[in-house]
């Protein structure tokens, strides 16, 4: 007997012509449009993303090229000023944004793919497979990721953006795996999953069509957190000098600013833009995440 208070009779609901899919979507949109956290977070991230995509198109020279007078504060010609060597900091900044987003998408993406795959298989299959995957997850989780990265990247010949992203991805998936596993574990015991098994569906199909759609908001959030995490790790690596050789990134800008004593020389225009850029992107991603949580989780909507 499911006597849900306030839902007497079934004829009411049977009579409603509105399909649930559409209703869900419009409902989500309704809450999304009214969520300041989501809008602010999304606004900041998109602004930086656009800067990173469009900005470099208007810059006719290599960001590391010595183009102007040395040690100039921001001016009409050089918006963010120049470095001790006369490099255009604005050019470095927009190129740096581009590579920061790339590392976020690539590093976060690798971590997301590995993490969710491991999480889904462990949560769905259970038993010995779960135990093995869990063990691997825990081992990777307790490895001091930064140290591994430093060692691995320091010995690498080619230090490109994608290699860096790959290594970040390979070390940061475990918590995503654990989060996805616990969700999948609870969804895997639902009757409709059993029913899909009885309908002769293969495991991966059950995971992708029965379980994953029911935790889509959760997955989006995991990706955002991994994305932000990858940006931070990359910035850290760049800062200690293990960034992509010959490239440009916000972390590398910080590194050279610190290397050439920008702080001591009061060249604030050198370290503020990259520092603020990283903080703003990661910060607004987290705010965005909280906003998404409120939009997708009906329990938080009322707050």
């Amino acid at each position, binding site marked *: 007997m499911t006597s*849900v*208070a*306030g*839902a*007497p*009779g*079934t*004829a009411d*609901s049977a009579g409603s012509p509105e399909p649930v899919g559409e209703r869900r979507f419009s409902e989500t949109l309704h809450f999304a449009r009214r969520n300041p956290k989501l809008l602010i977070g999304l606004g900041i991230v998109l602004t930086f993303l656009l800067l990173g995509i469009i900005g470099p198109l208007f810059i006719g020279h290599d960001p590391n090229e010595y183009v102007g007078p040395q040690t100039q504060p921001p001016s009409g010609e050089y918006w963010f000023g120049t470095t001790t060597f006369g490099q255009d900091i604005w050019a470095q900044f927009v190129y740096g944004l581009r590579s920061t987003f790339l590392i976020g998408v690539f590093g976060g993406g690798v971590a997301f793919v590995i993490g969710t795959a491991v999480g889904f298989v462990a949560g769905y299959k259970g038993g010995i497979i779960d135990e093995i995957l869990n063990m691997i997850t825990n081992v990777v989780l307790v490895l001091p990721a930064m140290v591994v990265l430093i060692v691995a990247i320091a010995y690498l010949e080619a230090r490109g953006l994608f290699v860096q992203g790959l290594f970040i991805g390979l070390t940061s998936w475990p918590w995503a795996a654990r989060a996805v596993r616990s969700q999948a574990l609870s969804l895997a015991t639902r009757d409709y999953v059993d029913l899909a098994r009885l309908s002769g569906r293969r495991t991966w199909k059950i995971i992708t069509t029965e379980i994953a759609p029911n935790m889509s908001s959760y997955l989006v959030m995991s990706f955002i957190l991994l994305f932000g995490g990858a940006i931070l790790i990359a910035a850290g690596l760049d800062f200690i000098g293990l960034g992509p050789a010959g490239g440009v990134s916000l972390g590398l800008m910080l590194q050279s600013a610190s290397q050439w004593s920008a702080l001591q020389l009061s060249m604030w225009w050198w370290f503020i833009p990259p520092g603020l850029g990283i903080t703003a992107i990661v910060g607004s991603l987290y705010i965005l995440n909280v906003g998404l949580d409120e939009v997708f989780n009906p329990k938080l909507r009322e707050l």
Partner: protein
Amino acid sequence: MTLRVNDLKVYYQTLRGDVRALDGVTFDLADGEIMGLAGESGCGKTTLGKSMIRLDSRMRHVGGTIELNGKDVPIADDDAMVPLRYREISLIPQYAMSALNPTRKIGRMVNELLRARGVRPADIADELNRRLELVGLDTDVLNRFPIELSGGMKQRVVMVISTLLDPSLLIADEVTSALDVSTQRAVAESMVEFRDRGYVKSMIFVTHDISLVYQMADTIMVMYAGHIVEKAPAATIINEPKHPYTQMLIGALPEVGSTMVQGRLEGIPGTPPGLLNPPTGCRFKDRCPMAFSKCSEQPPLVEIEPGHWAACWKTG
């Protein structure tokens, strides 16, 4: 007369309008009466039980009165209800046993509850122990956590706690539904015992299981789609139901001893009407084989013989 409910209307507010869960309910409950309140899901039986103790935020008191021991029960006024709850009217809600806080020992929970009602736990400790023993529990349960008790034990603890201050009226909502048959019998029998000993004066036992309520109730009231369809002594409802809905409902129940080979039972075709825009007249008319033109007017609940009330034009 312990309880007198007169034309009670309680609606649920939803985005699409009012759901008329309780649409004009009138009945009396005599001193010492155990009334079984039966009906299908969504018929309003749980709403009726809840209305008598606390309206939640979505429920709205639209009309009608409740009188307990001759005094008006101000159900729409939440603050005025506070002194009545637990002392005069007590409710064991559905799933009460899973609502016990898992991190508190039972005894501590009882003490907190009593203090919140201005009662010193020490004054009542003896009575508490006596009643626990009466329902077959060791007084040691007070030192245990809810998780250490079985479903039947928890349900009995909840029962003892909610009747500790000897309320006039106890409303028990599906208290035995989640229990195994043998525990179900024990719990049901202790409820009758509580009434016999005067721990509670009268009781409304809400359930979907008519054969269970027949075992313990003095009277049975059947609800359908927010209305009362029939109320009569338990044996009369089972053996000589007058309302077509009650007849069909009882006819649809298989019991031990009846097999398909001996004769198939039939269900009631169709589904109950939605209560957002309920049909006018008798709400059962669309599923009723005996419906005729008059059924488009709402039949009143009339006493067809002493103590037997029914709302049907064919029985009146």
